[in-house]
């Protein structure tokens, strides 16, 4: 605090910085940039569910070839690693966006709504 107090000459700069940061919220642009990562996450999620379903089928089928189970488990491990790594990236990006650009809850909601639209347009969602 003491050091901060000595930096009065930076006061004006600080205020200008705050103003410039708070005025440049462009949720449309941010959502479009973020959509690529989220699209990958959605596809990976779908893949995880497909793999989980297949695993269940194989597990319940007592005559299944052991090799098929082993090969499926290998794919599951790789998909898990890919998912965890992507989740980390998304979390980091999102924290950055929320800290630096989307401080206001209404901006976040607008961002989320636009993200959905962009992703639907990109065709990442399969029902």
């Amino acid at each position, binding site marked *: 605090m003491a050091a901060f107090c000595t930096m009065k000459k930076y006061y004006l700069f600080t205020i200008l910085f705050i103003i410039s940061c708070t005025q440049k919220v462009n949720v449309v642009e941010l959502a479009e940039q973020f959509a690529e990562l989220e699209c990958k996450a959605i596809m990976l999620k779908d893949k995880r569910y497909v793999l989980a379903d297949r695993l269940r089928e194989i597990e*319940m089928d007592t005559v299944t070839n052991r090799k098929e189970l082993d090969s499926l488990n290998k794919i599951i491990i790789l998909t898990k690693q890919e998912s*965890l790594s992507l989740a980390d990236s998304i979390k980091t990006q999102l924290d950055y966006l929320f800290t630096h650009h989307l401080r206001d809850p209404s901006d976040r909601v607008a961002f989320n709504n636009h993200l959905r639209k962009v992703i639907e347009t990109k065709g990442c969602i399969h029902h």
Partner: protein
Amino acid sequence: MISNILKFTYSKNLAASIILSFLALILFDSCTKDSSDQLSKTTEEYSADFILSYYDQICKTVKTTPGFFPPQAARAYGYIGIAQYEAVVNGIENAKSLQNQLNGFASFQLPTPIQGELYNWSIASNAATARMMKYMFDKNLTPANRLKIDSLEIFYHNQLSAGEEVSIVSRSQAYGQNIADVVYNYSKTDGGHESYLDPFQLPYSVPSDPFCWVPTGAITTPLSPRWGNNRPFLASNIQKVQPPQHMAFSVATNSEFYKEAMIVYNTVTNNTSEQIEIAKYWADDPFATCTPAGHTFNILAQILKEERATLAKSSLAFAKMSLAENDAFISCWKGKYDYILIRPVSYIQKYIDANFKTVIGTPPFPAYTSGHSCEMGAGSRILSSLFTNGSGDYQFTDYSQLQYGFFARSYSNFEEMAQECADSRLYGGIHYPIDNSKGLQVGKAIGDNVNKEIIWPLFVR
């Protein structure tokens, strides 16, 4: 629409900027005042940024540490939450240590701050949290996760120590570490110590009665059958809060049991795409998440960030949630193995439709009651106590699942969120309605109990 939002946001932000400018002026004004009292900071004067970073890391650690199933994860969160709270409790006005309030904790002597000496509570909390994390994941902690925890600890220790007297830094750090040591010793006696090494608690034989659980996949023995014997943080959470006997098992088509199974069958058969999304959203899905308890802690952390909560408020919040989540899982698991109820998928395939398939995988343990409903019921009551006047009314959006490929979901009440979580288990086809309703009831009772039975500090910012 978007441009309107932006125009609205722009004018709002301009107003916010002006307000911020005034706040900055006030801040500078305060710089000229006598700063001699800054040495005796209370916990409310510290930022919560570092503790929130640890909770992000706990989630990541749960996801990547073998043996951390939902009960084990809730326990890890539980004891870390106690350690971080005890490390700062003496810096929160009117706060009381949990030592004489938690089941069996009184016989473990926590260190007390040295009279007349000054402490930096954030440094103490940093040290306690990092050490407790390493204890709770201990033998299965990967080198990468250990390195991340060490890095966080060093980074924040340096940041929080800046400008602080060396003696205060070392005293505070040692105090936090000693707190973690004592809480860890306490944890060793609860019945769940190192349970991540043997989460299935073998050997265990499931009775062969027709109402009993049978395997629903490759795992032939159910998860953690003796978890219900663990010591809860509050004995009353087990003694006073247990689900009633479920409806009598029957295969008669006019029986209550059959009707419950038919509700599951019809729901899954007629699920909307929204219901399927909800089932997967709350499933804390295969292979990749930090379990239901972790999801609830993520929601709490997000709200604390949004509220710009201080270290005092955040520590209190994590402590409350820790007690509730740990005990919700013990209570729920006790019920599961008191009743050992068959899962809907097993019943339906045997007595209704052999080709029935659930939306999500059925986890390997008995049905009654639903773990998700218990834990989120408990969590909803803690969230209500922290952020509302008890009504639960709170407008928020859960962004924590975006990282797993789900859109954020919005709620206007914590109870509404808990109900959706409970319903998701029906949509998924893995629980009878009664598992969810009674689970929610038990969980809420546990949350209320944690709020009432512990002497928590009031009006913490």
